């Protein structure tokens, strides 16, 4: 189940909204997992953007929240919160936080991006163990999952040809992963309350055992300026699942 959630995060975070500069965007998804050949709705995933002002700077607060539907809470309760604060001017991440509670297993992580842009001061805690602190080096373009997908959502895929790909660098669990994004083509899909939308299909690949199959981890982003993720399909060693947009507001 934890793998499913991680995958949901990996793909769902490809939301990042603020896309072309709109705090207050909210996207709500219904996440399903294929159980015995049947897509079963497990959780609601919501993604929001907000403008945060400090005495020195303005930050874009991008948050991702996942919660199991109440009927599942007694079996496997999930309450996950992923947050990233981007500098509004440079769009560089300043702070990343992860707080997950999945079936009684909890993890909290905090990454503070150091001003040199080459390292992160990280703190993490698993369950009730003592908090661990670690500074680790990162590549100049490496970003946490939410910041990375924000970047992805700013990419104009209209000029891409099918098969064309780009590589981004992801930081997850204090490790860096190259993530390949391949443009697969276009398709028209139902996008919740937005109606039918033409979407760009992107295939996600990363050198990790969390993803399975070639071109089986896909995301459909609207082929307009908002680039809203409409559908996400993932394939992992323990099965397949999807996340479908049910409601979008503040776009």
């Amino acid at each position, binding site marked *: 189940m934890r793998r499913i959630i991680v995958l949901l995060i990996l793909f769902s975070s490809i939301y990042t909204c603020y896309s072309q500069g709109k705090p207050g965007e909210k996207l709500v998804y219904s996440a399903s997992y294929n159980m*015995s050949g049947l897509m079963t709705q497990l959780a609601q995933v919501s993604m929001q953007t907000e403008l945060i002002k400090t005495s020195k700077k303005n930050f874009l607060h991008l948050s991702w929240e996942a919660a199991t539907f109440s009927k599942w809470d007694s079996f496997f309760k999930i309450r996950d919160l992923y947050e990233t604060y981007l500098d509004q001017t440079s769009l560089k991440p300043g702070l990343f*936080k992860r707080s997950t509670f999945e079936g009684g297993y909890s993890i909290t992580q905090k990454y503070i991006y150091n001003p040199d842009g080459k390292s992160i001061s990280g703190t993490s805690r698993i369950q009730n163990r003592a908090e661990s602190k670690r500074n680790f080096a990162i590549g100049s373009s490496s970003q946490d999952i939410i910041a990375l997908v924000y970047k992805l959502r700013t990419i104009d895929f209209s000029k891409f040809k099918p098969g064309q790909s780009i590589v981004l660098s992801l930081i997850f669990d204090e490790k860096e992963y190259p993530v390949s994004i391949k443009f697969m083509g276009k398709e028209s899909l139902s996008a919740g309350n937005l109606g039918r939308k033409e979407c760009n299909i992107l295939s996600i690949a990363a050198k990790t055992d969390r993803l399975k199959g070639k071109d089986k981890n896909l995301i459909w982003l609207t082929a307009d300026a908002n680039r809203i993720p409409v559908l996400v399909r993932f394939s992992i060693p323990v099965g397949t699942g999807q996340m479908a947009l049910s409601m979008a507001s503040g776009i």
Partner: protein
Amino acid sequence: MRKFLLITAIIFAILGIIFAVLPLGTIAFLPIVIAIIVSLLAFYKSTEKLKKLPRIVLIISAISLLVVVAKVVLIKDKVATDKQFEIKKEESKKEDMKDLEGL
């Protein structure tokens, strides 16, 4: 063969009832559909005098199927209001402000 089919049908029918009662959604279709198929086979394998039990298992499985379909169609999935989680989010935000002031 008939006995094996009947026992299998009864086991899956019981599982189907349990799954239908529990909030397991469409997963309940799996044991119910198996129970229906196996009880149908048991029904056709049975002589006229022995058709009663597979018929009962079949009816129970069909009712379970209707219950699951009704639950899937009529009951909408909701996320429970989690006050503890909301408080945690607020506290997290306050803590974040302190970190952001230092950036």
